[in-house]
């Protein structure tokens, strides 16, 4: 009886899981949680902060978001959260708790390691892909930051190797063509990896056209200790890249430098050389001995 119950339980569990997987409905979120609304102002600062979090925490699975009627990415791909269907179906609270709790059946991990504020910022960012979105009226949005009107001419990268700071300096002109400070311009800072550029962070320039970012110093560098840092101005083609001695130097051990069977001739294993030399020497000494015996026979001829 017990066994039958166990099997039945497993069958129900599998059935439930399969249904859950297909329908992707049950995330275990209560109605009160669903009813919650955005707890922070739906303003540019929060949206951009959310984007930065999305880029490092979510993008590796959810990829770029784009405004589309329905999601076309099927499991095991994570859905495009820019799908209007998804945006319409989920309340702010549902987004928030899905991020918080995760969903084991689909592979979505819980992100409770992010602070509540960070999670709300993510929701704010996700909502920027929903043109019909009405932010809760109770929270007033902060005025949008002043947008730089002018032209970015170029950027230079500088490094402070003592503390790992990356300093991006923009060169810009105003509408009249006079040199100007570009404030609040988004700068993406990447580090070059083997198969692409890895985004470290997105920063905004200050009043001096400067964005500063701390390089993650535990990132592996090449065998000489160098990494290539790339900075781009968001929405333009302006970029700069530069090598710098940051991160942890990679200590690459070439297996060909060790004695091995697959290595070059100079790295033949000692045991192999010894075996070869001893065996060949032994055999040829015996052959030499036999030839010497022939001479002994010859010396016994009748003179």
């Amino acid at each position: 009886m017990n066994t039958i119950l166990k099997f039945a339980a497993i069958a129900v569990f599998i059935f439930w899981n399969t249904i859950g997987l297909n329908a992707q409905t049950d995330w275990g979120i209560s109605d009160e949680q669903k009813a919650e609304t955005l707890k922070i102002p739906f303003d540019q600062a929060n949206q951009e902060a959310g984007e930065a979090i999305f880029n490092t925490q979510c993008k590796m699975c959810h990829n770029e978001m784009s405004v589309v009627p329905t999601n076309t990415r099927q499991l095991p791909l994570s859905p495009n959260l820019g799908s209007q269907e998804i945006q319409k179906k989920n309340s702010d609270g549902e987004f928030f708790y899905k991020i918080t709790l995760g969903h084991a059946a689909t592979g979505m991990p819980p992100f409770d390691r992010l602070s509540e504020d960070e999670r709300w910022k993510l929701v704010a960012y996700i909502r920027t892909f929903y043109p019909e979105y009405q932010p809760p009226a109770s929270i007033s949005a902060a005025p949008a930051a002043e947008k730089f009107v002018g032209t970015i001419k170029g950027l230079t990268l500088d490094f402070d190797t003592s503390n790992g700071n990356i300093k991006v300096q923009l060169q810009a002109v105003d509408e009249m063509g006079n040199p100007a400070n570009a404030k609040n311009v988004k700068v993406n800072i990447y580090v070059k990896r083997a198969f692409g550029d890895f985004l470290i962070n997105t920063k905004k320039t200050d009043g001096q056209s400067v964005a500063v970012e701390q390089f993650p110093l535990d990132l592996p560098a090449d065998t000489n200790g160098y990494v290539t840092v790339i900075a781009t101005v968001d929405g333009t083609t302006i970029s700069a890249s530069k090598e710098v001695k940051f991160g942890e130097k990679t200590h690459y051990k070439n297996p060909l430098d060790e004695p091995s069977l697959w290595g070059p001739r100079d790295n033949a294993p000692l045991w192999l050389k010894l075996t070869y030399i001893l065996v060949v020497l032994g055999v040829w000494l015996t052959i030499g001995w036999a030839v010497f015996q022939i001479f002994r026979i010859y010396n016994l001829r009748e003179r």
Partner: protein
Amino acid sequence: MSEIRNQDEKAVFEKIKEDLLTPVKTKYWGYNALIVSLLTLIAAALYAYYFQLRDGLGVTAMTDYVSWGIYIASFVFFVAVALVGMLISAVVGLVGQKWITPVGRIAEMIALAFVMMAGIIIVIDMGRPDRLLNVFLHFRFQSPIFWDVTVVTTYVAISTLLLLLPMLPDLGIMRNHLKGEVPQWKWMLYNILSLGWVGTPKQYQILHRTLRVLLILIIPVAMSIHTVTSWLSALTLRAGWDSTIFGPYYVSGAFVAGSGAVLVAMYFIRRGYKLQDYITDYHFDKMGKLMVLVSLVYLYFNLNEFLVPGYKMKTHDAIHLHTLFNGEYSLMFWLTQTFGLILPIVLGLFKKMRKPFPLMLIGASLVIGAWYKRVIIIVPTLIHAHLPIQNVPKDFTEYNPTGMEVTITIGVIATAVLIVAILAKLFPVVPIWETAHEKGVDIEKDL
């Protein structure tokens, strides 16, 4: 009484000497025809080789895929046949079999000739033979090709000694008795090679001891020459070669090929030189039994080599095995297995079949089968590339040797036969002194 005995002994010895030295002294029409035809084949091969030297390996059918063709297959074949010297003189001889006396020297002659041609055909397989020295200048201790060069050289040296040393007493006899009966240069050759053999007890003692050491030494050397040859293929990951039993598989196959070659040589030498009293039906019977024994061992290894991967049919093995079992090479494969293995075993079990003529046919079937078997081992594996090339030409995935290639290969085989023929004409094929000893004649007094 002892006077009569001495008279008797003398008569027996004279008879043996006369019978066994006649081939050395006599001119044979058939022998000369054989030499001329072999030289013609060799001349054709040299002419073809001139084109290969001038135009490179492009004159062969070898491509980036099938980079080992019938040259390397013949190399493996030559090494295989050469192993018979070790099998007869050392393995069978050291376990105390007396019947090998008239067979041992033939086996040694075949061994020496074939192992020399094994070395030659490797050079022929090189597009740039002038770079041969690089093997010694820039060798890697880890490379099986370097090991192969080492063991082939060693085997040539030991085989030469094993041919020369047991011949010393015969050479002494020939020096003493053939003066004036053979051309002067021949006698001079015997005189030099006999190394002043006079047959003192001390000389015999040295000879026996040296022979014993060499006969023991040649067993591991011969095992390693063919094991290393198998490792040239087996140390790769390719389907059909990636096998742990390739060493013993090659060695046992070598014994089969070698026994076949000895049977053929025995038959024609006995017929041509009229040596029916010395190479008797008894010797053929024994050789036939030995042939069945080594073929059974080889059959066992064949079962392991094909049945075990054939049962599992791993992706790449399956492609290879289908090529052999029911694909492109199936006809060659099944004919080889039938005529080169199954039939000789079955026929060899019958006493009626262990007569000289049937055994010669079986031996020829074994030798031809052995050559095709090497082609089957080398070529089909290469046809299915381990790392395929994109947009590969169609003709890369097939291999049909060109006329040039075939001519050169036949020429090298002819050279091997020529060397055996010359050795078998220059020196007595059946040891005089051992035969006399076995008949109770004390030949020391004669020398």
